[in-house]
């Protein structure tokens, strides 16, 4: 039959026949830059790293390369430093996540309020520090949080607090200090929340007001549920970011983990294993553990999303 000579029988997918196949080929041509980059800079290195975890590649020792099975994993489970570093990351996360998710929302609610005069002016200035290079931000905040000459402690002293915390030099207060430094990055989250707030139909608020709902009830039963996709998005990205947090302590404390190991974040220990101790196999094993933890938490979040993330489109 004539039709079979046109359609390519080697695919079972009839929708990619004739013209469809030609279009499909163009599709591959256009995504080729990403596909090649993905294979070269993501897929291949990931597999290589995974293979490393079963070997003894260590550039600081000249042992012959050999497969060591699960030795690296066994070492990982028994390594107190790994668990300490993981604890540091989780401690910071416990403090940083709520701030990263809630603070931009609070700022966005404030900027969105009809009661605020000059909303555009505030929006620009609250966003501004987002564009400041993070090294500059760390040094500016390092001065601000200086125990003696920092303005925060000068302010606390003038309020009658005689011995304000040493912030970045005190293992108990350092996480609060680091979270304060992170506040300058809220601009992007704030703008995303603002976009979400603008997308909420005003008739919902009208209806709520007619039903006698106050400001708090409107926030609790309209704003938050309607924003839940944005909250979810912010939360997921914040988790991924916080799990990999290490650049600030690297610049601030030169990667020493001072004070008292409180800034030896998991990812910092990981990069030190790679670049300082040059123990590639062990670092690779740590990297895969981090990947596993990230995957688990994100999957758990995506799983939980069904219960609390509300998609207006689905409900209707």
């Amino acid at each position, binding site marked *: 039959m004539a039709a079979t000579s046109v359609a390519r029988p080697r695919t079972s997918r009839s929708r*990619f026949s004739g013209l469809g196949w030609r*279009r499909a*080929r163009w*599709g591959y041509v*256009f*995504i080729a*830059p990403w596909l090649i*980059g*993905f294979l070269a*800079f*993501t897929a291949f290195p990931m597999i*290589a*790293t995974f293979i490393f975890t079963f070997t003894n590649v260590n550039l600081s020792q000249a042992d012959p390369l050999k497969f060591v099975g699960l030795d690296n994993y066994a070492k990982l489970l028994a390594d107190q430093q790994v668990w300490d570093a993981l604890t540091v990351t989780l401690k910071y996360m416990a403090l940083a996540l709520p701030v990263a998710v809630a603070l931009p929302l609070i700022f966005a609610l404030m900027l*969105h309020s*009809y*009661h605020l*005069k000059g909303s555009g002016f505030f*929006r*620009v*200035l*609250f966003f*501004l*520090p987002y*564009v400041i*290079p*993070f*090294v*500059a931000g760390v*040094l*500016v*905040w390092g*001065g*601000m949080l200086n125990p003696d000459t920092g*303005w925060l402690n*000068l302010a606390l002293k003038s309020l009658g607090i005689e011995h304000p915390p040493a912030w970045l030099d005190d293992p108990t207060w350092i996480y609060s200090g680091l979270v304060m430094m992170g506040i300058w990055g809220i601009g*992007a989250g704030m*703008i*995303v929340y603002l976009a979400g*707030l603008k997308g*909420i139909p*005003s008739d919902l608020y*009208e209806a709520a*007001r007619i039903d006698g709902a106050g400001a708090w009830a409107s926030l609790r039963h309209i*704003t938050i549920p309607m924003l839940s*996709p944005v909250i979810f*998005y912010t939360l997921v990205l914040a988790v991924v970011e916080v799990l*990999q947090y290490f*650049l600030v302590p690297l610049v601030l404390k*030169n990667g020493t983990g001072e004070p008292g190991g409180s800034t030896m974040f998991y*990812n910092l220990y990981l990069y030190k294993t*790679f670049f300082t101790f040059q123990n590639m196999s062990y*670092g690779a094993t740590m*990297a895969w553990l*981090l*990947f596993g933890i990230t*995957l688990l938490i994100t999957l758990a979040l*995506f799983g939980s*999303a069904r219960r609390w993330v509300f*998609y207006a489109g*689905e409900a209707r």
Partner: protein
Amino acid sequence: MAIETPTFPAATTTSRWRPWRRSRSGTAVTGRPPRARGDRPKSFLLTLIAVVVLAAFLSPMVRAVSYALKSSDQITQDGSPLYPADPVTFTYQGKELPILLVPIDGVTKQLALFEPARKSSTFIDPQNPAAGPIKWVGSWRTLDHVWTPAPHLENFAKVWDLIDYPRLLFNTAVIAIISTIGTVLSCTLVAYGFARFRFPGRNLLFTLLIATIFLPAAVTIIPTYTIFVKLGWVGTWLPLLVPTFFANAFDVFLIRQYFLTIPTELDEAAAIDGASPFRTLTSVIIPQAWPVIIAVSIFHLVYAWNDFFGPLLYTSGDPDIQTLALGLQRFNSIHYRDPGLIQAGTLMTMVIPVIAFLLTQKFFTRGLVVTGIDK
């Protein structure tokens, strides 16, 4: 991994949603509840709170400016005010005497310290030096100086020379511009492929693309680094530039979301007229997609300007090819004892992005609304 695109705010762009074109009707559709009468006090209170919060939010920056304008003497001087200032002095009998605030007879007078001593000191009244020394009982060290604002600019000049600022500025600008070109070119092509063509495995590949956002960089860094070592690229800009020509998940996602909002009729008309898919992209799609392309460019420019880890890995060995961010960190590790210099350096590193932001701020905040995503 299940990636539900509706989780991203940008996914609301299924119809032709163009928030950067302000609707004239403005408030009618937004979520802002209509203004009720009698809320002036509320308005005042909220604006006041915003001003206080903003002042606290930006105060570290104010401190940085103040420190950058202080000489090292001004920083170490006891009791000096928050702004750069010198103690006021009065020249008497050829000597420079500091002027202190002295409480005498229930009034605080500005007097020049003539003969300091532990229990009591003598002062000269600058208004009336002929009256001779005035005796005051008490420790002069407890008295406050009188200050006059005296900003110094020499920190900036010193940093300019010490870190070879012009060179680092040039390096940073070239890297940022080339990598932005790479990102915009490659991401536009890839986004077009995902938005306009059906091919086997498209959904799987797109999910893979999005999944790379969640992949910790540590999982790929060592083999990637090793490849660059083997290619002889470490110590050059190539590891910072070449990968940007292979697209990244965030920007592809943004541009694709935007492309999906452009109707396909014009593409189809162009195809019927015999335009190739590439021609359709350049003459039909891109002219309609400038907002997202500019938004991605600006955001990538800022990202590249501020990037730290890439330059740290690949350019650490050679100060001549480093960027400002890295230069600032190196500078800090040498001059950390001189906070005036350090803060001048931070200001000189941030000044270009800050000015660029203030000039394009409308686009910035709207760009993020379009994109609904941050880097």
